[in-house]
């Protein structure tokens, strides 16, 4: 006998080729636990295109269609429409793409799919850079981060543009369901996926998926870093159901952002002033989110 808080069924096998401590594999494991066997995935170029291993190996116990970097939105639209014609309306169609493939190159295909209103899931697993090709910055890389294309040195060219909020871009598409999630809170993530499953139309979930290799922290800290992202309000967990915001985890006494930053080598260079600037940015975002929750819940 064992009492569990998440489904026991495994649809992601062992023996995959992800780095040790990879957050994106934990994300996939939970997504498939939540959605179950009747699911078809489409994955573009990203770490997850490599993780299952080379042909003829398979790592996932559901059908998977690889697609080009920029077209996940189009691929899932086509799969959905074909399945509907075949009368297979109960099959979940899921795009599972990285932050580069979502915030940057795949944004128009995603936007078009959302606007057309296909009954699909789009999961953005957000490891905050182009990890598969060697840690290049993406639009989703946070303020102050080192990447190989935002290097340090005398000129201090670290990324200073704020992280693009793809979840908010998706809210602006007026789709039925948008949520954020992260791997340290599997029960929260799975209940969001299940809620989304009950809804028809495009569903978008952004999953913060820490990457030890690219974020420069030891692999045993993946879940801890993910938890701290929420406890410092760096990555708030919320959902937007038909335009109504609800923050699903509200830290009682948020920890200083510095605690989160200092765990990771990609932020090690930051000065006290720079940390204060990031703290201010995070505080403003959090206040804005609280306002959105309050305003959207009013009738």
């Amino acid at each position, binding site marked *: 006998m064992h009492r569990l808080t998440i489904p026991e069924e495994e649809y992601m096998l062992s023996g995959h080729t992800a780095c040790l401590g990879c957050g994106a594999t934990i994300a996939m494991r939970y997504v498939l636990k939540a959605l179950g066997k009747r699911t078809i995935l489409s994955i573009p170029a990203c770490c997850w295109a490599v993780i299952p291993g080379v042909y003829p190996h398979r*790592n996932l116990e559901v059908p998977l269609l690889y697609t080009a970097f920029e077209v996940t939105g189009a691929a899932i639209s086509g799969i959905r429409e074909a399945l509907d014609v075949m009368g297979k309306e109960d099959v979940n169609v899921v795009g599972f793409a990285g932050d580069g493939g979502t915030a940057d190159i795949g944004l128009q295909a995603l936007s078009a799919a959302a606007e057309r209103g296909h009954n699909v899931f789009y999961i953005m697993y957000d490891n905050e850079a182009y990890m598969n090709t060697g840690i290049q910055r993406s639009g989703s890389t946070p303020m102050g981060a080192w990447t190989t294309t935002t290097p340090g040195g005398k000129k201090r060219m670290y990324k200073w543009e704020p992280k693009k909020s793809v979840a908010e871009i998706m809210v602006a598409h007026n789709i039925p369901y948008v949520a954020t999630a992260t791997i340290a809170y599997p029960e929260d993530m799975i209940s969001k996926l299940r809620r989304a499953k009950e809804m028809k139309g495009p569903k978008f979930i952004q999953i913060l998926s820490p990457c030890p290799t690219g974020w420069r922290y030891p692999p045993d800290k993946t879940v801890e870093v993910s938890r701290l992202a929420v406890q410092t309000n760096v990555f708030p967990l919320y959902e937007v159901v038909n335009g109504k915001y609800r923050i699903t985890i509200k830290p009682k006494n948020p920890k200083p952002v510095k605690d989160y930053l200092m765990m990771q080598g990609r932020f090690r260079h930051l000065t006290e002033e720079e940390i204060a600037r990031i703290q201010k940015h995070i505080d403003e975002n959090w206040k804005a989110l609280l306002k959105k929750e309050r305003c959207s819940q009013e009738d």
Partner: protein
Amino acid sequence: MAIILPEDPTPIAKVPSTENKTGGWRTFRPIIHYDKCIRCYICWKFCPDAAIHFAPPDAHPSPKEALAKFDTVEINYDYCKGCGICANECPVNAIELVLEEAGGEEE
């Protein structure tokens, strides 16, 4: 140039990734001290390699009578890459990471 097709030209990847024994990647070996394990399954929940499974309650000693009816957990060293997440997340520090050469064949 002749194009050589595989004997069974199918886009369906048939070989499970479990053929790939990733345990060989390990530098640190997580070892569960069953005299501490409270059978909470948190390690099972967070393992990125799905390398922790359940075992019958009596497969290992339990620290408390009340826990003895619950299943216990085991690590599959064929696949565990030794990331240490299980050791970091275990609420009672029942999992110890030991350097692989030193870990030997204890388990």
